[in-house]
């Protein structure tokens, strides 16, 4: 049984009590302690800046040419916080409750409560750093709503919230780099974890410009390396987002929790062709103002697909606003897993609206009218024409989502101010990740995981605007406290030397693997295998899963993996800049992870959140959870073969919420 080290006492006092009793490292001793932070997205940049500021000697790594380019930069819609600025009854408990329920009761109460508790500080901190959140005319902060909740608690900066938050964390990090407290290694990729006497003591990294293999030691290693959605090849993640750092940790003993919990986001631009390299998200915030529909009649849908009808030709009564129909209480703002499955259901039934039949409409016509009418009143325009109202409405919508509309138009060549957007679900986020305890430490001593790289807070489905919150909570406010508790016993250890056998061995592993990849000299490119893997994952471990499909997938993935190692073709040399080699290493790890994801999905004989097993559904097609048998975290242990990983269970206890069937009706 796993020990999550959850502090005792009432839920609302756990974090405060814990903070009051953890060991501290005094300032003079901090200077003798090295910490490696891998990844400088929201979680890593905030952690590295905070740890540097506290006096630790920090080394931070990222594979981009600047921390400002981490994938967090792409987050669009917003960040949640229980500030209750809108006076709509929000509270720490409500944010906690929404998150637990949204996650379909598969996350740890204590962690989620802490997240809700520190959420308000994040907003204060960011504003103090100069993050330009959206404001109302009175000069105070504005909020919007996200799916799965009935309050307005999402702070935002147009459709660029992640960018603004990351630039805030990046500025804090830059300040510490300038002070010499953080040494920043851009264009460096961690390729191995170094373990000494059962503790994480360093990493092996490759300089992606020169190809040099480097050794870096530390007293603790913090992985903030993001999610693994790219296992599906096509996703909304940045091209280079990958699982390798977490996977190396897993191979060195760290448990990988709930790998099958992936989030398929309902509003993404549909696939357009076979050369597609990535998918683009249209923020969930759009569901505040857009209504989702498909034609009610199959003939209309067919005519639209063939280009014989346009969306505006379909009259109101012939449209099916299926989310509003099925879920009247939450309507278009149901959680992501629910919205995605509903879109798939309609498209599978033949109502899809683009050439491939895999798209639904997201329509803003109503929002233009609604906002336009209000705006006309505000401006004192009496009896405005319908055209005038719509024009004003478009301006308001542009002010809220301008960059998203522009992005959509550039990609599709359709103007969403004049015709509804077409959207379809796509892989977006991974709730699973490295298992961590309450202190964010993995089961490997001295190895921590923060942000999307860990599994901790979102259960089987993440609510919108909660990943940014979690990344910054982990990095600014949780890890800086909890890591001291562990490091307090290391103040006399002294610098960890890199000429020890453990470093030799780790470096040799890295070199062997690179040599093996370069030596294959086969026929197919890395992308060829990545696409193949992605197709298996999407078809058999995607929005709907079943036993036989998952078993097939595991076999197919093994075959792809074997073929890859035998027949991949990597140009260039290992001792120079070689983006194909970088990619090959990442894809090789995805091919192991993919199998583990299927194994996890196969073992979880229930449906919950983003994990939908076709065998387990209600007669209305909703997910059917099995709390008696599956209210646990599945934490997998590496055994040398990803298909035969060993299952460890962390049972989840719910003392402050009642387990119910999630209903958004």
């Amino acid at each position, binding site marked *: 049984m796993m020990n999550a080290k959850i502090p005792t006492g009432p839920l609302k006092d756990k974090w405060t009590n814990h903070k009051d009793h953890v060991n501290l490292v005094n300032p003079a001793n901090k200077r003798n302690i090295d910490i490696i932070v891998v990844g400088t997205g929201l979680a890593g940049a905030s952690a590295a800046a905070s740890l540097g500021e506290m006096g630790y000697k920090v080394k931070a790594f990222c594979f981009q040419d600047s921390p400002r380019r981490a994938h967090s930069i792409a987050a669009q819609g917003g960040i949640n916080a229980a500030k209750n600025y809108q006076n709509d009854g929000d509270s720490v408990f409500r944010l906690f409750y929404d998150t637990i329920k949204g996650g379909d009761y598969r996350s740890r109460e204590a962690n989620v409560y802490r997240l809700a508790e520190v959420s308000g500080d994040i907003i204060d901190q960011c504003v103090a750093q100069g993050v330009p959140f959206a404001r109302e005319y009175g000069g105070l902060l504005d909020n919007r709503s996200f799916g799965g909740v009935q309050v307005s608690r999402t702070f935002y900066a147009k459709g660029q919230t992640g960018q603004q938050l990351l630039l805030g964390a990046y500025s804090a990090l830059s300040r510490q780099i300038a002070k010499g407290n953080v040494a920043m290694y851009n264009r460096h990729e961690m390729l191995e974890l170094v373990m000494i006497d059962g503790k994480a003591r360093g990493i092996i990294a490759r300089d992606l410009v020169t190809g040099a293999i480097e050794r870096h030691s530390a007293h603790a290693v913090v992985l903030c390396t993001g999610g693994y959605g790219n296992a599906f090849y096509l996703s909304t993640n940045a091209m280079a987002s990958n699982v390798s750092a977490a996977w190396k940790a897993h191979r060195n003993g760290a448990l990988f929790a709930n790998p099958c919990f992936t989030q398929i986001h309902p509003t993404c631009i549909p696939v357009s062709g076979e*050369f597609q390299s990535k998918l683009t998200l249209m923020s969930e915030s759009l569901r505040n103002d857009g209504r989702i529909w498909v034609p009610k009649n199959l003939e209309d849908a067919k005519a639209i697909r063939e280009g014989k009808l346009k969306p505006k030709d379909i009259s109101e009564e012939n449209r099916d606003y299926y989310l509003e129909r099925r879920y009247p209480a939450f309507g278009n703002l149901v959680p992501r897993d629910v919205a995605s499955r509903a879109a798939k259901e309609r498209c599978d039934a033949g109502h899809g609206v683009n050439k491939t039949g895999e798209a639904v409409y997201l329509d803003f016509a109503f929002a233009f009218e609604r906002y336009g009418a209000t705006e006309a009143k505000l401006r004192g325009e009496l009896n405005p024409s319908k055209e005038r109202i719509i024009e004003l409405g478009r301006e308001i919508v542009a002010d809220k989502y301008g960059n998203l509309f522009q992005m959509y138009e550039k990609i599709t060549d359709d103007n969403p101010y004049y015709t509804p957007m077409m959207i379809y679900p796509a892989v977006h986020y991974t709730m699973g990740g490295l298992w961590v305890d309450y202190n964010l430490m993995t089961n490997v001593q001295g190895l921590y995981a923060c942000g999307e790289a860990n599994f901790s807070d979102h259960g089987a489905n993440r609510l919108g605007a909660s990943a940014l919150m979690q990344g910054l909570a982990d990095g600014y406010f949780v890890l800086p406290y909890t890591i001291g508790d562990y490091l307090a016993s290391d103040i006399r250890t002294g610098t960890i030397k890199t000429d020890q056998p453990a470093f030799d061995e780790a470096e040799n592993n890295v070199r062997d693997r690179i040599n093996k990849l370069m030596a294959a000299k086969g026929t197919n490119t890395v992308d060829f295998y990545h696409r193949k893997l992605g197709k298996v994952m999407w078809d058999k471990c995607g929005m709907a899963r079943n036993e036989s499909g998952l078993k097939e997938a595991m076999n197919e993935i093994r075959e792809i993996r074997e073929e890859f190692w035998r027949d991949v073709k990597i*140009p260039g040399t290992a001792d120079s800049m070689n983006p194909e080699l970088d990619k090959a290493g990442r894809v090789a790890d995805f091919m192991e992870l993919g199998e583990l994801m299927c194994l996890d999905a196969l073992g979880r004989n229930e449906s919950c959140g983003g994990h939908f097993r076709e065998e387990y559904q209600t007669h209305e097609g909703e997910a059917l959870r099995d709390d008696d048998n599956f209210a646990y975290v599945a934490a997998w242990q590496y055994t040398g073969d990803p298909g035969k990983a060993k299952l460890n269970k962390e049972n989840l206890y719910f003392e402050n919420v009642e387990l119910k069937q999630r209903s958004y009706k």
Partner: protein
Amino acid sequence: MNLTLKIWRQKSPDDKGGMVTYPMKDVESHMSFLEMLDVLNNDLITKGEEPVAFDHDCREGICGTCSMVINGRPHGPDSAITTCQLHMRKFNDGDTIHIEPFRAKSFPVLKDLTVDRGAFERIMQAGGFISVNTSGNTIDANTIPIRKDHADMAFDAATCIGCGACVAACKNSSAMLFVSAKVSQLALLPQGHTERTERVLKMVHQMDAEGFGTCSNTGACAAECPKEISLDNIARLNREYLRASFVSGE
């Protein structure tokens, strides 16, 4: 459509480099420009040649990683977008397309179309921040109301993605637009006022030290900026700089 690509190939920073011609067949108009290059690279690898190295990551115009000069224009022929947002429908059958890296003394080429923009990092480290610790013990975010128009202007300046197209577009390789965007954002917000003087002096000093050229107000930077960062920011930077020089007695 069929195209002829002329691409800058350079093995390493000290290689001389040169343009190499590649014919491209059956390019589809809905492909993105980078997807077109993916296809080329796939062909090159299959033929046993080295693919073209280029920087990219988000492929949706927000990370600022992609950086190419296409037919003489940073980020290519379309306006207000990055290279990764450019689609092939902007080109015609039979076109010849010239693809080069961002050119500037302060952005040395690492390989092919990949350049080193470390100079931007050092400018940000010199002063692109507000000195507040990350303890969370700050004041409540709504304590200081900020005029919406100021907040909006600060936001517009803050949308700079640090791509460096402004430098590549400028005949003097000036980084003024980039620097002015950060200086403006922070100068427009009350939180940024305390360090206003030092910040602008330090950032401009670092910009000069990195070897970026002077600004001669031709506006090429703003014309090519994918985020439409306005020249007003440069005017504001100049005012901030003058003011700071005066205040600090420099």
